[in-house]
């Protein structure tokens, strides 16, 4: 099971997912090498050249400070990647641990999963809003808040799956071999959770973008001076009639990116699931 053949399995015969993956790579490259690709400094203001239409000089036009929207969009890709990866890592580690430990240690689970249930009773955006109002606007806090929101769903899913895996015969067999709790949890149960975790990661990455954009738009997310697609939407929203391109480009970028992540996530799930079935049926 090597890495390259796994990748080939995921994308063979799935054109849309392949296009989605290419787009995500473009975003990643843009994020890593933003200073190289951006023709202007994203923070350079130009009071004379405000609200310019898209042109060869400014592909995406300029905003109400005269900043180059194209350059800001490229720097915005950075935030997309940082927020996405940050939320995924936070949510999977925290949520995964809560879910696994709760299922494995029943008493602890009674407490932890009740807290998760309470948090899940809030709609995701409302929960993020409430938490954000308690915290300062910053990249870290945005990641933490979105991470907490999706840690709850991750915990729920992994709780159910761990509960099932914990009753598997191979877990009993490991106990009979003398394996301790940590070895059973992390050596025997966790590797069997890799595919749901991957699916969950792509789901969180996509929704984190929407959440972050919504928080930015409401002025509760990233600090306003950071160019992110959500902040761009938020700051330029009053110019929607005079300079619609200011909303069009970041809006399209968010939509295409979320769509791409979902396509790639679905492809991963589809390609992993049948092989998972093979383990059980292909004997």
């Amino acid at each position, binding site marked *: 099971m090597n890495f390259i053949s796994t990748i080939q399995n995921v994308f063979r015969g799935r054109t849309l997912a392949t296009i989605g993956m290419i787009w995500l790579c473009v975003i990643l490259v843009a994020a890593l090498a933003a200073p190289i690709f951006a023709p202007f400094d994203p923070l350079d203001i130009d009071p004379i050249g405000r609200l310019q239409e898209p042109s060869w000089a400014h592909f995406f036009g300029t905003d109400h400070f005269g900043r180059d929207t194209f350059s800001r969009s490229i720097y915005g890709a950075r935030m997309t990647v940082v927020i996405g990866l940050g939320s995924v890592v936070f949510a999977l580690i925290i949520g995964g641990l809560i879910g696994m430990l709760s299922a494995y240690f029943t008493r602890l689970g009674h407490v932890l999963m009740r807290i998760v249930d309470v948090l899940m009773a809030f709609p995701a955006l409302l929960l993020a809003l409430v938490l954000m109002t308690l915290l300062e606007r910053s990249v870290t806090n945005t990641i933490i808040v979105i991470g907490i929101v999706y840690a709850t769903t991750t915990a729920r899913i992994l709780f159910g799956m761990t509960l099932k895996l914990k009753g*598997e*015969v*191979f877990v*009993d*067999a*490991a*106990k*009979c*071999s*003398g*394996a*301790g709790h940590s*070895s059973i949890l992390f*050596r*025997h149960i966790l*590797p*069997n959770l*890799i595919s749901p975790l991957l699916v969950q990661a792509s789901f969180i990455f996509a929704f984190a973008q929407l959440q972050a954009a919504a928080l930015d738009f409401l002025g509760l997310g990233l600090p306003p001076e950071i160019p992110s697609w959500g902040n761009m939407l938020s700051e330029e929203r009053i110019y929607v009639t005079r300079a619609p391109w200011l909303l069009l480009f970041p809006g399209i970028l968010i939509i295409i990116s979320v769509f791409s992540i979902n396509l790639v996530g679905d492809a991963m799930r589809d390609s992993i699931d049948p092989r998972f079935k*093979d*383990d*059980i049926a*292909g*004997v």
Partner: protein
Amino acid sequence: MTQPAPLLQVNDLKTYFTIGTGGPFGSGKQTLKAVDGISFEIHAGEVLSLVGESGCGKTTVGRTLTQLEPATDGEAYFNGTEILSLPNSQFRPLRREIQMIFQDPFASLNPRLTIEQTLAEPLHIHKLAKNRKEARVLISETLQLVGLDPKVMDRYPHEFSGGQRQRIGIARVMILKPKLVIADEMVSALDVSIQAQVLNLIKDLQRDSGVSMLFISHDLGVVRHISDRVAVMYLGKIVEIGNRLEIFENPSHPYTKLLLSSIPRIKPGRTKVEDLGEPASATSPPTGCAFHPRCAIATEICRSAQPEMNELSETHVSACHNISQLLGGHA
């Protein structure tokens, strides 16, 4: 005459489960007496078979003795140490000596671990190998012992057939050189053509290593060649226990006779198999002798009183009210 102390001495073991959600007012809860007061012993090097039909509690006996289920009551002395009440941390070193082979060879191997990883785990836990190289040597030896090519250790479980997987399961147990192996229906999930091979393998391994076994099966036919002694279980209780010949040639309990008559025979003309009937429920067992609703010779007392264990010989014990009648006078 004094016999050496048994390797395993089980006294009045009980394992009850609470089942049912309990409903909103905790009503629907029921106690399921999966194992209800059984006693037996296994001596060093001996194979005791535990037979009985599905649901009578055989697996639960094995799982309780390996602390996979908590015992409700009773004692089990292993080499003189009471093991049912041992805290997990103190039982762990003993796990090396008390090993279990599971019924389902497909479910008992972790699909995400290679055979080497699966077999190395017990070695490292019990510090039987200092490093990977030492472990691989031991794994190779054990794989050969169970009739597999050592090269298979780099592969994953899904690449193997049921019989091969059960051999891997046997290897995982034998690599620890245990004193007692509990084999739970270890061939019943396999093709009939494979069953004999695996049975012969475990029989040879048992004889060569001198390990004691609790061999669990619902099929008296399977246990015939492997057992030294046989215990017959019905609804959580042992109804008859004796040497192999005593059980197969001279069965006394009506249930044992029923089980014996249901072993399929190849001889034509003897095809009549007595109807096994419906086993009773373990949540609300019949009063008196649990077997009486299905028993051809049940009398009034069977409905009201639980039968005692009657000694038929020093090694042969049977729990039936009507034994003296059957044998024509008390033994």
